[in-house]
Structure formats: C-alpha cells, structure tokens
C-alpha cells in the first residue's frame, strides 16, 4: 500500500509536466500578444517589441517552453505576473484559501446531503420520497449554477435582505456560493447512490440477509451500502473536479477573490504565467484528491487492497 501511494505521488509529476506543456502550447499558438495587452492601446510597435524581448516572448517556441518547464519543475517557481509584477505563487497562495474553502465545503455538502438522499430514494423505490429526491436531483443536474446563484441573490439579498450580495467576510458570505456550487454535486451524488444501491439491493445475498431475519437497518448499512460504495466514491472524486471548476464560475458571480477570479482577470490581460500557474496548482490539488479517492477504494474494497498488497489473487479482477 505504501509503495502504491509513493508510486501514485510520483505519477503526479509527469502528469503536471504534461499539463504544463499542453496549456503552454495552447497559449503559445493562440492569437493575442501579452506585450501589447500590458502596454495598452497607445503603445508603439517599438515599445511592444522591447517589451516582448524583455519578457522573452521573441524566443522560438521550444526555447520558451523549455525555459518555462525548467523554471517550474527545477526551480519550483511559477514565474512572475506580467501585469502585477509579483510572483505568481504568492498571488495564488494568498487566494488559495477562498477557493479551497468553497470547494471543500461543497464537497462535504455533496457527501452529507447527496448520499442520504440517494439511499432514501433507493429504499423507498417508486414511493413519494423516491419521486421527490429524484425530481430534486434532476433539477440539480440541470440548473446552471451561476444562474441559480443569481436568482438566490435576487431573492435572499435584494428582496429579503438576509444575505450579503457579494464579497467575502463571515460565514454568511459563503452560504449562497456554497449552495449554488454544490447543488449539481449533491444531485449527481444522489443519483449515483440511488442507482448503485438499487443494483446491490437486488443481489441474492440481500435476499439471504432478509431471509435470516436481519433488520432493515442492518441489511442497509452492513450489507448493501459497503458493496454499493465504489461508484459512490468515484462520484465524490469527480465531484471535487466539478467543484474546483465550478468555483471559478461562482467566484465570478459573487466576486470572491479566489484563484478563479485571479485567473479570469489574468485571462483578460493575457497574463499567461498566472493562467498556467492557476491550472497547475488546481491540477495538483485535484490529483491529490483523486489519489485520496484511490486510497479510500483500497480501504473499502478488499479486492482492490489485495491487488496493491501484491497478492496474485487480485489478478483475476484486473484482467
């Protein structure tokens, strides 16, 4: 297991290298000149050329790419913002906690609300509770998060005056962003939990447990849920990706000064180091979460654990 974790941690490195090359290349081919964007409309061609030379933008692609990779991966330096002239890593780190608080709270909401909803729907198959949960879930995956956020602003901030419209501060500032960003996750979680519970509930061993006279509670939590967990955990991991991406949009709606807003303003001013750095840092966060998900798989499912512990028994399943 320890070896597996180390292997997976090391795997993050080439993945980040790949992401860096991919995004750098896309940024390079794209139209638009950062030098011109920094200098503004009044700049002359000579000034722009000077700026380009200063930023190293007049070098050939491969030189620029290698320089960037060397800087990021050997010197662990994400570069300096063209626009703010401050190190990108500082800018990201001072904003990181807003994005992380938002994404992690949403993930917690997704697990704590979505899973029970899904279980309730599965155990009350076709009943009123099932109908209700599934209608809520269908709405959740279909409502645009940013629109839901705006509608909440209209209702709770403008009409009722209960919650602040935008910005950051105490917990009341996070209520609407978290609801808006987690609704889709809660819905996905509920849908996945329901369908994997339903699949398990029809198994023979559940009938056996029923025949043994076990209580519904015992069957549910000891026999059904553990076996239904794998797809449910997968959704949690994917949900984190959704929350991180969604955070960028929701930060925009509520003017939360997180990584998302930092990146968006950088996109408008063609400040490549910030965009690249933001994607890399969020990519690392996401990869770490996915690693955690893989480790949790191993704890939940003895078959997967056996595979990592090097026993040949797991070979059948992997084939």
């Amino acid at each position, binding site marked *: 297991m320890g070896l597996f974790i180390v292997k997976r941690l090391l795997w993050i490195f080439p993945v980040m290298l790949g*992401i860096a090359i991919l995004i750098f290349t896309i940024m390079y081919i794209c139209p*638009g000149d950062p030098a011109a964007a920094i200098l503004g409309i009044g700049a002359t061609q000579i000034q722009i050329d000077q700026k380009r030379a200063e930023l190293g933008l007049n070098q050939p692609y491969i030189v620029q790419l290698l320089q960037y990779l060397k800087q990021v991966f050997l010197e662990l330096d994400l570069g300096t913002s063209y626009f703010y002239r401050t190190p990108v890593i500082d800018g990201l780190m001072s904003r990181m906690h807003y994005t992380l608080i938002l994404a992690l709270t949403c993930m917690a909401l997704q697990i704590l609300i979505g899973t029970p909803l899904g279980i309730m729907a599965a155990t009350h198959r076709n009943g009123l509770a099932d109908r209700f949960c599934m209608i809520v879930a269908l709405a959740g995956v*279909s409502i645009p998060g940013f629109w839901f956020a705006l509608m909440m602003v209209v209702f709770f901030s403008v009409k009722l005056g209960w919650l602040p419209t935008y910005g950051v501060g105490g917990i009341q500032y996070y209520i609407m962003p978290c609801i808006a960003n987690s609704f889709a996750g809660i819905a996905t979680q509920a849908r996945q939990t329901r369908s994997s519970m339903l699949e398990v509930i029809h198994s023979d061993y559940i009938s056996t447990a029923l025949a043994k006279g076990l209580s519904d509670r015992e069957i549910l939590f000891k026999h059904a849920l553990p076996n239904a967990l794998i797809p449910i955990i997968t959704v949690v991991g994917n949900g984190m990706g959704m929350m991180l991406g*969604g955070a960028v949009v929701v930060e925009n709606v509520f003017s939360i000064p997180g990584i998302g807003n930092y990146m968006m303003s950088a996109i408008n001013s063609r400040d490549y180091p910030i965009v690249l750095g933001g994607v890399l840092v969020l990519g690392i966060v996401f990869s770490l979460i996915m690693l955690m998900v893989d480790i949790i798989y191993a704890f939940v499912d003895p078959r997967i654990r056996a595979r990592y512990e090097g026993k040949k028994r797991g070979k059948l399943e992997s084939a």
Partner: protein
Amino acid sequence: MPKKDARPKKDSPFAQVARRLSKNNVAMAGLAIILLLSLAAILAPIIMPYDYTAMDMRNMYAKPSLEHLFGADDLGRDIFSRLLYGSRASLSMGILSTLLSTAAGIAIGSVVGYYGGTVDNVIMRLLDIIQAIPGMLLAIAISAALGSGFLNTILALSIGGVPMTVRLLRGSIMSLRNLEYIEAAEKINCSKLRIMLFHILPNSLAPLIVSVTMGIGNTILAAASLSYIGLGIQPPTPEWGAMLSAGKAVISKYPHLCIFPGLCIMIVVLAFNMLGDGLRDAMDPKLKS
C-alpha cells in the same frame, strides 16, 4: 436479396429499446421538448416576432407583456426573439462539441483497442493528463487561449470530453474481445478493422448513445457558463449565457433580463437529462426491474 431468417420473428434490439422508451413518459416529454426547441431554433428567423437586433429606446427594460412576451433588454431589444435566435448558438454548440468529442473518442478508442499493448499504454497515459484537469477548468484555459467565438468554444468544450468516450469504448472492447462471435469473425479472416467497425462498435453503441445524450445537456450548460464568464460567445451575438451575463448588472432592478435565459438553459438541459435517463433505462432493462 433479403436474408432468410429461420428463427421466430423478434424485434431488433433497437426496436425493443424504442418500444421501451416510448412507454417512458418522462423521456418522451424530454424528447418532445428537444424536438420542439430544435424546430424553433431552425425556424427562428421566421417565427421570431421582432428582429433580434432591433433596438427600441422607448421599450428599454420593458417588463414582460403581451407586446414583449419576455420583456426587453437594456437596448429595448425583444428578449423572446433574442432567446429564440440564441437557441441556435447554444444548441448547436452543445450538439456539435459533443459529437466532435465522441467522434474523436471513438477514433482514438478504436485505435487503442485495435493495437493494444504499448499504444494503449501511451495513449491512456496521455488521456490521464487531460483528465487530471477538472473539465471546466480545461475548457476555460483552452478557450482563454483560443479566444472567444463559435468554433473556438466548440473546440474548447470537446477536448475535455474525449477521455471519457475513449474509456467507455475501450472498456466495452475489452469485454467483447474474448467473446465467441469475435473469435469466429477472426477465424473466417475478417480484418481487424472490419471486426472493430462491424462487430465491436455496434455492440458498444448503447452506452455511447446514453453518454452522448447526457453529454449534450452538460455541454450546453458548460457553454453557457463559458459565455457567462466572458469567454465563449460574446455580445452582440445572442447566446443564452452571454445574455445572462449582460443582464447581471441590472439584476436587482430588472430581474427578467436574467430569469428567462436561465430558464431556457435549464429546460434544455433538463430535457436532455430526461431523455438520457430514459435511454439508459431502456437500454439496460435489468436496472429497471
């Protein structure tokens, strides 16, 4: 010459799916909404009550009324007409980028399944890299680099969807590869390409169709998000996300500028999800029992 079949007459699998689907009211409602909206999008220039660019300063921010069904925007343009015309961009971006990513996914997935071994390893690791970035973030980064616009947005949205299709197809190729009928096809000297195209792909279609249906809904949502944050499609072209973004500034005074574009997005995505759910149930009856 029609083939003779000695077996008792039985519906084709697709006829069975269609029959089961037609009994599912929710899915049929979804399908009806999709067809209706597609028709509206195609006929938009004919049926829209006003020119979507026509400004009317007397009706700035007009509230919904019989004259302007959904009201008018900051330049007095009819929101209903703009939504109708905007459905063209939103729907076609969703459909085209899902089809593009699925086509690319099928091509790559077939190559991966066809060669296996090292090719499989290399391509799957490359796809891992794409999947290591949250989808929305990747779309933002790519469309930031490419710039806004119809084709650029389609490209940005489709890249993130490719790994999923490849995985789906690869999974079903793996499970089908060892079945007898594939072995039989190999024994009668079918080429690998032929096996892939005529024997494996048709049998992998069911999950692909479900994922395309759901994918279109999600992509429409993502496209609107991109336009909303200032990437994607930009004004003056009417697009639902961009209209929402334009209405945001005056939302406290004139919420109808935001309410209707959002409702449109929601209804379309809901319809695709309803149809997708129904298709999944119809194609996998064992889940339904």
